[in-house]
């Protein structure tokens, strides 16, 4: 280990709370009449909880899990996860999916399939805090609070402390 300070990794410059403020504005622009927010478990679920409050939307936001539709089930098995909770009709609704990070796009593919098990939405769009490079499917975010490039092996995800403050973690 050298004593010299290491250069900050791109993720270290990610201020989750500052990005969240941008996300609030981005999601406000995406919300059409009758649109509902659905957060992708787990990071996205924290985000919609706050967005619902800060955008003064009525009712509860939805939470969706990719577990039942993942394409790596045979390799990874069934990971522990909260079940999908959609406290409103999906049929004919405009859905705004919210997640912390858009990376390969595979999670989004899985949750769109999951969404369709509950009905046929009018439209589905996606808002994220961070859009990174490395897409493996033709999926794009309608809004991203920031866009960064990271080494393919680097994993980042949102964490939440006891006071509810958000930050990014890396593995």
């Amino acid at each position, binding site marked *: 280990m050298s004593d010299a300070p290491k250069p900050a990794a791109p993720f270290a410059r990610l201020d989750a709370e500052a990005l969240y403020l941008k996300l609030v504005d981005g999601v406000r622009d995406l919300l059409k009449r009758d649109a509902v927010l659905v957060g992708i478990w787990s990071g996205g679920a924290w985000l919609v909880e706050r967005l619902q409050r800060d955008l003064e939307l009525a009712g509860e936001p939805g939470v969706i899990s990719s577990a039942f539709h993942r394409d790596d089930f045979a390799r990874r098995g069934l990971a522990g996860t909260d079940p999908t909770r959609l406290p409103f009709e999906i049929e004919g609704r405009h859905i705004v999916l919210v997640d912390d990070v858009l990376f390969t796009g595979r999670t989004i593919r899985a949750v769109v399939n999951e969404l369709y*098990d509950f009905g046929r939405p009018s439209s589905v769009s996606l808002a994220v805090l961070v859009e990174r490079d490395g897409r493996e499917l033709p999926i794009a975010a309608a809004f991203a609070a920031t866009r960064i490039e990271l080494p393919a092996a680097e994993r980042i995800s949102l964490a939440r402390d006891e006071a509810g403050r958000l930050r990014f973690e890396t593995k």
Partner: protein
Amino acid sequence: MFGSRNPQLNSNDELIHLLSMEGLPAAVIQHILDTAGTFLSVNDRDVKKVPLLRGKSIFNLFFENSTRTRTTFEIAAKRLSADVINLDIARSSTAKGESLLDTIANLSAMHADMFVVRHSESGAPYLIAKHCAPHVHVVNAGDGRHSHPTQGLLDMYTIRHYKKDFRQLVVAIVGDIVHSRVARSDIHALAILGAPEIRAVGPKTLVPGDLKEMGVRVCHDMAEGVRDADVIIMLRLQNERMSGAMLPSAAEFFKTFGLTAEKLALAKPDAIVMHPGPINRGVEIESAVADGRQSVILPQVTFGIAVRMAVMSIIAGNAA
């Protein structure tokens, strides 16, 4: 029944077969129960099916008849999008003299991914698990008097659903315990999950003496057995397994060990009454109790499908 290591687990302690409750880590059981909770919500969807086992073939091998258990496994497998093949083995190949392992080899050549096995011989599912290809998974759907682990798990799911924490509970298992693989599975599971008092209640002829060594309190008096219990699990009087004079008569049994409203009043006021089904009204349980407010017999059936979905999806996702 185990060799040096538990054949149900791979080297990472992940479940690859479900053969018995014995030796399962508490974390594995809790993971199954948590996963079952997730699957329960699939019933509320437009599409009551998830694609986790799409393209997988599950063979129901029932060497002993049980339409009900076979049906719950079939529903669970279909909700996971698997292809289900029901083989009435009792009336087919084994009747022609084919050995169990030859039957399994043949079915494996048909690209089976999972066997759900019900057999009158204790240990038959172990034999199959030991000899099948590494990618094939085995679920014990009841073997002899030995084990019925999915019933044990759905009983644990039911208890956890209504009582939350096992570490405070008095659980009374009542009736024909000597013939009951359900009782054996429940006792192992309750011990693993930390239930402090497990009682086995029944006449001397139907409660095996070795239970005391498993830490079970043996009661030959019904009032003593159900007093202050949180959970009462009634077992079916297995007439078809009964040979000789183990019991004077069904009527006599009901008088002494049948669960009536009067006897139930000795348990805690919020005690739940369970039964693996099919129930014999007027033999081990009074109709008023089976249909009463403390009965959770029908929720057990609903939970059973979610628990079997959890077991099949978890073992299918773990490599040997």
